[in-house]
């Protein structure tokens, strides 16, 4: 649906060239909620703006449904842009227009008849849950409500793609969750492909099925959210993940266990719901201490990461470990 083919974007500023996006190749399939994550300055916004040609690629091409937007005339390009809705971190609503008029704007541009606009706006207001705010001005809305208006406006021309530039970065955690749910509803109910960028792993975790990690203009890792999250390859990816779930408790807490060997148990998918640990320890009469860890849901699958210690005869502990290793990943934890 969206295909980046070896895309590079270089900005010429006074005296120097800044390569914001470098040789990026990525494919976003129809129906995806595709997340791009990266630290500030990684080139995420630039990459996103290449999709609707707010930036022109310096090299390579971006294909939308197998066609490059650079092949269109200016007029055709404006037509094509109606097929790609966009929402923004700062909402970018028109302050001189009411909520209803903001949503009507892209339809007015498209020359849709008044009665039809009215009907469509009402429908969109219902979809985003703001029917009572039609006549309000943006400054009378909360951040979350503003983003709902942004989403309604982006959906007005019934696009097939929605691109989101840090759509929840200006919102508190609760509102973020609401907006993410709405984006998911857009994807599921309207069948719209979503490409979003963020610097928050929680956003990816909550709604994306696929993810790409960007650093210094390049995509350093990409794949399904589950695989990338449970088996990160690149140091930067690991940093993002450890930002949401710390790998280890602090050294201060770990001191308590300095005498004993700690193990990290990693459960993925169905394994996380099997009573493996309790079965193995009961069978060999070993006690288990769960010291630290998380169990979470990713793409409707479990992912568990536990740090444990065992108490019992060494031989029996080894037997437990052997049994566990057959089903899940077990690593020894070195305490510094």
């Amino acid at each position, binding site marked *: 649906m969206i295909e980046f083919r070896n895309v590079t974007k270089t900005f010429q500023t006074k005296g120097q060239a800044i390569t914001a996006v470098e040789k990026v190749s990525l494919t976003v399939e129809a129906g995806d909620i595709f997340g791009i994550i990266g630290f500030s300055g990684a080139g995420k916004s630039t990459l996103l703006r290449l999709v609707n040609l707010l930036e022109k690629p310096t090299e390579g091409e971006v294909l939308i449904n197998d066609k490059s937007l650079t092949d269109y005339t200016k007029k055709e390009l*404006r037509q094509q*842009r109606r097929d*790609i809705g966009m929402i923004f971190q700062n909402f*970018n*609503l028109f302050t*001189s227009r009411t909520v209803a008029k903001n949503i009507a704007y892209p339809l007015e*541009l498209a020359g849709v008849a008044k009665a039809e606009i009215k009907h469509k706006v009402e429908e969109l207001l219902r979809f985003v849950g703001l029917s009572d705010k039609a006549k309000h001005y943006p400054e009378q809305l909360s951040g979350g409500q503003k983003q709902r208006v942004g989403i309604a406006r982006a959906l007005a021309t019934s696009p097939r793609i929605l691109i989101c530039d840090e759509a929840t970065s200006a919102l508190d955690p609760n509102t973020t969750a609401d907006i993410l749910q709405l984006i998911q509803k857009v994807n599921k109910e309207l069948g719209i492909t979503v490409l979003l960028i963020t610097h928050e792993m929680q956003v990816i975790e909550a709604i994306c099925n696929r993810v790409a990690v960007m650093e210094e203009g390049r995509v350093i890792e990409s794949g399904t959210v589950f695989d990338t999250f449970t088996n990160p390859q690149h140091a930067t990816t690991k940093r993002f993940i450890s930002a949401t779930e710390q790998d280890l408790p602090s050294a201060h807490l770990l001191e308590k266990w300095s005498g004993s060997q700690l193990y990290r148990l990693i459960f993925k998918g169905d394994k996380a719901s099997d009573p493996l640990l309790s079965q193995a320890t009961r069978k060999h009469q070993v006690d288990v201490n769960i010291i630290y860890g998380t169990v979470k849901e990713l793409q409707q699958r479990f992912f568990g990461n536990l740090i444990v210690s065992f108490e019992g005869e060494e031989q029996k502990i080894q037997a437990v470990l052997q049994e566990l290793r057959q089903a899940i990943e077990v690593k020894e934890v070195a305490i510094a």
Partner: protein
Amino acid sequence: MKVDWQTFWPRIVEATGQTLTMVIATLIFSTIIGTIIGLTLFATRKGGILENRWVAIILNLGINIIRPIPFVILLVALMPLTRTVVGTTIGTAAAIFPITIAASFVVARVVENNLISIDPGVIEAAEAMGASPLQIIRTVLIPEALGPLVLGLTFVTVSLIDFSAVAGTVGGGGLGHIAMTHGYQRFDTSVIVVTVVILIILVQLAQWLGNTLSSKILRR
């Protein structure tokens, strides 16, 4: 020689009418011309919706040459051109031409400054929705900047009252002319006082109108 107020009042009324004519006419003309220049300046600047280096350079150069010229000097310098365009250099109609020229460049800068303060994200949002440059000008730039723009134009209106008084002293008619001929040249303080009071009232009125209108637009 003191004026006879009995017969002089009608002349004051007539002069006030001339001043108002000059101010209103030049406000309309310079708003139209200045807005077009200001929009062009904004659209053609680097990264603008109709980026065009040469148009931007030439317009900026033009404005930077004309604006620093004191209005009295511009008025005199433009006389030959005024004669060609209006047919005379005396009277209210002849004053409107140079005032419009001077004010248009002021309006152009006011418009440009107000456009610059629009959040670029909003313009980008319109572009992303498929708006053409002309649509952006009509449906985003003008409505989004309108509130502060009205305040800016109010400020310009006050300068127009000032310009019209200056133009009056060199034959443009209006209150400036009366103050000059009767007040200054014939040492009649009462005429000066009356014209000054009327000018102050006009300025207050313009300011009040502008403030009211802009707060209506800005909803505060």
